[in-house]
């Protein structure tokens, strides 16, 4: 693109400011509503900047019993999903990157299938299976279901990173007497660390955002709910404390938004690379 004149520059900044202002207004509104005192929520016209921000709303939400628990469950699920899908995905990606395996092309098909599969269809048989295994109401049901949908994509992302690492590296280690698994763990993984971090975060984001699995498998056991499940239920109640919901939502959004802001380039690279295939 060409350099713009002064007038053009002002125009661009105005357009960027207007676009961001409009598109990000809902995020601002969540923040402002969370800080409003309960008796000012239903002001009409609404307050656009709270005169009396209630910062303690966050502590209140966390201290109200189920909320801390839901947050803890969400963290547990996200971390377990991340570990499970990354472990399985790394092994598979390494195999596909280094060996000519029959059926290796099946991976592309899996990614396509898991993208096309209506999740509301998948949960019917999964519910039946998990119930007969006694897994409904357990966080494991959600972890296993999420991991499986993340693994094909994670494998694809990781295979891309492994392909860029010369195989001579681990061959040298094998010659020096390392075991094949040892060569992967000590030689390949450290080199692939940035790619693995990006994939792990992708898994974390997907897991953290899940609602359908939690809604289906955990619905009857409130002590196992995740944040999204809790927020959706609070919203459905007859008397709605919007400041509480918005504070909870803000806390549910912050980890993901943080991940996005710090690692946008990796996530975006992986996303567009994976989806163009």
């Amino acid at each position, binding site marked *: 693109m060409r350099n713009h004149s002064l007038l053009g520059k002002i125009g661009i*900044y105005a357009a960027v400011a207007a676009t961001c202002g409009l598109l990000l207004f809902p995020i601002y509104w969540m923040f402002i509503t969370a800080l409003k005192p309960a008796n000012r929520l239903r002001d009409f016209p609404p307050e656009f900047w709270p005169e009396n921000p209630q910062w303690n709303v966050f502590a209140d939400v966390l201290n109200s019993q189920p909320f801390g628990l839901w947050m803890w469950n969400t963290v547990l699920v996200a971390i377990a999903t991340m570990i499970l899908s990354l472990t399985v995905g790394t092994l598979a990606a390494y195999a596909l990157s280094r060996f000519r395996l029959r059926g290796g092309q099946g991976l592309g098909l899996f990614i396509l299938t898991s993208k096309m599969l*209506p999740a509301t269809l998948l949960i019917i048989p999964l519910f039946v299976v998990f119930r007969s295994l006694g897994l409904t109401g357990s966080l494991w049901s959600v972890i296993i279901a999420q991991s499986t949908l993340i693994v094909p994509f994670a494998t694809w992302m990781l295979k891309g990173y492994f392909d860029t690492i010369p195989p001579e590296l681990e061959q040298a280690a094998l010659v020096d007497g390392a075991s094949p698994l040892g060569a992967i763990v000590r030689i390949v993984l450290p080199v692939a660390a940035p790619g693995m971090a990006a994939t792990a975060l992708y898994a974390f984001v997907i897991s953290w955002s899940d609602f359908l699995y939690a809604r289906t498998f955990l619905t009857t056991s409130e002590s196992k709910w995740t944040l999204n499940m809790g927020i959706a239920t609070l919203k459905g109640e007859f008397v709605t404390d919007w400041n509480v919901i918005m504070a909870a939502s803000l806390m549910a959004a912050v980890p993901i938004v943080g991940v996005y802001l710090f690692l946008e380039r990796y996530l975006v690279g992986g996303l567009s690379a994976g989806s163009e295939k």
Partner: protein
Amino acid sequence: MIDFSSPRHRSKFGYLLLAPAVLLMALIIIYPILLSVDISMKDVRIARIGKAEPWTLKNYAWLFGSEEFWNAIWVTAKMVLMVGGTALVIGLATAILVNQRFKGRSLARLFVALPWAVPEVVATVIWAWMLDSSFGVINWALLKSGIISEGIQFASNATASFYSVCFVMIWKGYPLVSIMLLAGLQSIPQEQYQAAEVDGAGVWQRFFYITIPNLMPVIGVTMVITTLWVFRDFAIIHVLTQGGPIGATTTLSILTFEQSFSFFRMGQGAAVGVVTMIICAVISRALVSRFANSVH
């Protein structure tokens, strides 16, 4: 013990590494797909494993004869067009905007796609509050600007509910379009623009004769992804409207869930789901090959 480092056993090691992934997929994707087809052909309310039931086409007969199913198809189609079209326009506009050269561009890129990072449930409750019939900021803005004289009942009016769902989906959906189109814009060779400028082509001509044709493959992919996402989405509609009022926002995905887990007619739910899966497969094939053809 097999020595995996010997060349003879190298590929065995490969298959060993692949085994957990294959096992997980087989158990959690392949087997359930087969099981759901099986359930869809059984007259069951709550399906159980290992209970022999005769196969029947009853659920499919119900499906094609029911008004709910055709309504869900219609709602889904409208939603795909509305969300896909609008997300494309916003995504393209924002991508072009942050592709300009200016200071702070990377920050602008970060902010423009920020809604991507907001979990769907969170996005939905924010919009639910903004669209509140009595105290929502959107009704206030519309009243204040004189566009409407009476607050819109977003929750109880069928048309308004449909558009509410679309707003949330567009807001959640445009960032991915923007991110991918930006990557597409960056890969267009600058020489093409320079040559066109030498030939005296204006801004709009360059846009229609260079930018759009070059972006076509990426646009195709993003539209397929967005379409499949609208087809499959559950969280936004379930949290915002639960498919109501009177089916105005009941997509195929919501109908599948409703039949299976609200009415506990899993046979019928699975039938809806299987048909949805087939439609998704056909759409993605048709769109992908069409856009692939338009490039060559």
